[in-house]
């Protein structure tokens, strides 16, 4: 145990550079929305009234045909999506394996650890940071007005600590509560480093994480590097399913996006940024619940490229209970929709930044269209089974999807050298886990479109590293 070192306290005033969009008049906004929706609805009713008497089929048959056509389109999009992502991810892995930049580039890095009521896990996080195989870095803990013992625990960590290669300076910033975005902005402003690593207070980094990610910054076009997030607390049904989701659902898509240097979300548990890119983007914003997605979109809009480093691993605690999982996904979905809404100009105008337009449409599809399609398809099979007795249809649907997931899971687990046992979960992955997540996404989308207020919330951490 190292002796506690002497500390120095000082008060610093940070300017809040956060840029806020001017708020629209709500009454006028809703009036505009009602008028536009009314005109569209009226047009559709007129089309139906005009065409229905001319139709050969009955309304019931029309409904059946329309549903079948919708299902075929859904299946087609699903396959195209899967194989496009698989192909791009494969090309990325090839590129990564054979033409990754060599090491030897060690700029000074500030690791920013924003914490809010993380007294159980902060010590382990900092401990993992002192074991980094990197010679030139400092740790800045930003205590965002915690109400538990985080401040005391963090103060005990301040000092020059023995790192793996050199001594590491650990500093602490105590600020009033203002959210993760403001906490990270404070850390970025305090840092004097060229590269900043933003992480979560409950995450733990792998030893080579910084060394492997930083080498990509030798390319001056790269504005940020996304790391690989893995589930730390495995062994339970929900956490294992999330571990598979992180590998199959998130990392594979991120690999595919990285091939075109357009990673759409730099994950909160590990993201490295060129400080200049954050400054140009106007820092993190607290007007959305997915500040990482928002900042990523702003960085891409400024013309920076974003890369994904699969060997820079951050281990994070996944929600253990269904309630916690829903809370997390609710926030993610609403945050992503808020980010899409915020950057809608880029979405409709590809001449500003084509990469951003493409990425925003992808996000729109994943967050809004996909969940609705998946729920719709499942509902159709339930209705088909009860109303028409086609109960075997749902089995073939499940078998097809399970086979697709099984193959994808095998590929992803092999590519990431992950636990093979996770492949088994792909049998229930789509019909059980993804269906729950999609229902949550759909509900969150409806709430977001209705403008229902929400809070950040806080997931309860148990500190698995201690157990």
């Amino acid at each position, binding site marked *: 145990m190292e002796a506690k*070192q*002497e*500390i*120095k306290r*000082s*008060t*610093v*005033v*940070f*300017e*809040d550079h*956060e840029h806020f969009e001017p708020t629209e008049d709500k009454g006028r906004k809703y009036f505009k929305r009602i008028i536009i929706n009314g005109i569209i609805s009226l047009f559709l009713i007129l089309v139906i009234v005009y065409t229905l008497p001319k139709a050969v089929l009955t309304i019931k048959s029309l409904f059946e045909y329309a549903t079948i056509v919708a299902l075929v389109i859904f299946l087609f999009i699903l396959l195209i999506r899967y194989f496009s992502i698989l192909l791009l991810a494969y090309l990325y892995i090839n590129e990564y394996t054979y033409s990754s930049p060599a090491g*030897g*580039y*060690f*700029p*000074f890095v500030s690791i920013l650890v924003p914490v809010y009521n993380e007294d159980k896990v902060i010590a382990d996080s900092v401990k993992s940071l002192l074991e980094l195989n990197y*010679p*030139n870095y400092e740790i800045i803990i930003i205590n965002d007005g915690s109400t538990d013992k985080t401040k005391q625990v963090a*103060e005990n960590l*301040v000092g*020059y600590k*023995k*790192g*793996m*290669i*050199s*001594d590491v300076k*650990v*500093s*602490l*910033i*105590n*600020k009033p*509560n*203002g*959210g993760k975005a*403001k906490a990270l902005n*404070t850390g970025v402003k305090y840092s*004097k480093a*060229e590269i900043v690593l933003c992480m979560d207070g409950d995450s733990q980094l792998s030893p080579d994480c910084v060394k492997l990610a930083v080498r990509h910054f030798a390319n001056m076009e790269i504005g940020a590097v996304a790391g690989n997030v893995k589930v730390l607390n495995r062994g339970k049904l929900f956490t294992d399913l999330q571990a598979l989701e992180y590998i199959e659902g998130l990392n594979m898509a991120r690999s595919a996006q990285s091939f075109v240097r357009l990673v759409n979300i730099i994950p909160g548990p590990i993201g490295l940024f060129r400080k200049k890119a954050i400054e140009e983007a106007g820092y993190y914003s607290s007007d959305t619940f997915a500040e990482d997605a928002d900042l990523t979109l702003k960085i891409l809009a400024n013309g920076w490229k974003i890369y994904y480093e699969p060997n820079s691993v951050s281990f994070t605690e996944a929600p253990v209970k*269904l*309630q916690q999982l*829903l*809370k997390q996904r609710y926030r993610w979905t609403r945050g992503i929709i808020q980010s899409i809404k915020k950057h809608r100009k880029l979405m409709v105008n590809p001449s500003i930044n084509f990469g951003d337009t493409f990425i925003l449409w992808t996000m729109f599809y994943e967050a809004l269209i996909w969940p609705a399609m998946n729920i719709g398809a*499942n509902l159709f*099979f*339930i209705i088909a*089974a009860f109303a028409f007795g086609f*109960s*075997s249809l*749902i*089995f073939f649907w*499940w078998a097809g999807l399970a086979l697709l997931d099984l193959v994808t899971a095998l590929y992803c687990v092999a590519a990431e050298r992950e636990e093979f046992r996770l492949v088994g979960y792909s049998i229930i992955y789509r*019909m*059980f886990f993804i*269906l*729950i997540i999609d*229902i949550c996404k759909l509900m969150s989308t409806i709430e977001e479109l209705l403008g229902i207020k*929400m809070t950040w919330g806080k997931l309860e951490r148990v500190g698995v590293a201690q157990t």
Partner: protein
Amino acid sequence: MELIPILSTIILVATISTFLLAIGAYILYKVRERRGQIAVAPHEAEIRAEVVTPAGIPAPRQVEQQRPALQPIYVDRQPVIIQQAPGQSQQRVTQRPQPYTAFRQQTAVSTEQQPGQYNEAGFVQQRGFQVPRNGNQPEEAKQQKDSKFLKYTTEGYVSTKENKESGAVRWR
């Protein structure tokens, strides 16, 4: 009974249960969330924060590499089969492996290094082990070089180098 109808029923029941579970859990989550108080953080132009840093700058010290000490690596060698004259049994001699010690020069990394480029000084990567760039190999490496070529005699393995100072007469 056929397998597909049974599996279809299982999948159907599981799907309906998942629907009910998801909707029920969502409603429960919303009810619990509503009980919590909503506190909106005020937006201020300035953030006043207390910065806690280590007092003073420690004197630069020579930091030893924390990497684990290198253990001698024994190189596996193939057994040498000595062909004997007809009638004699084959003698199987396994060459005694020589300890193959990689060495590492301890780097002196100053803790007061300024932010900027960092170079791992003095190392050139050569086939899995590191040697200093200046080429001054330590005694241990020289010994290894000497024992690279050995001659097998009735007394075992001996060095191929002649000891000219011993004065012993050698048959040519």
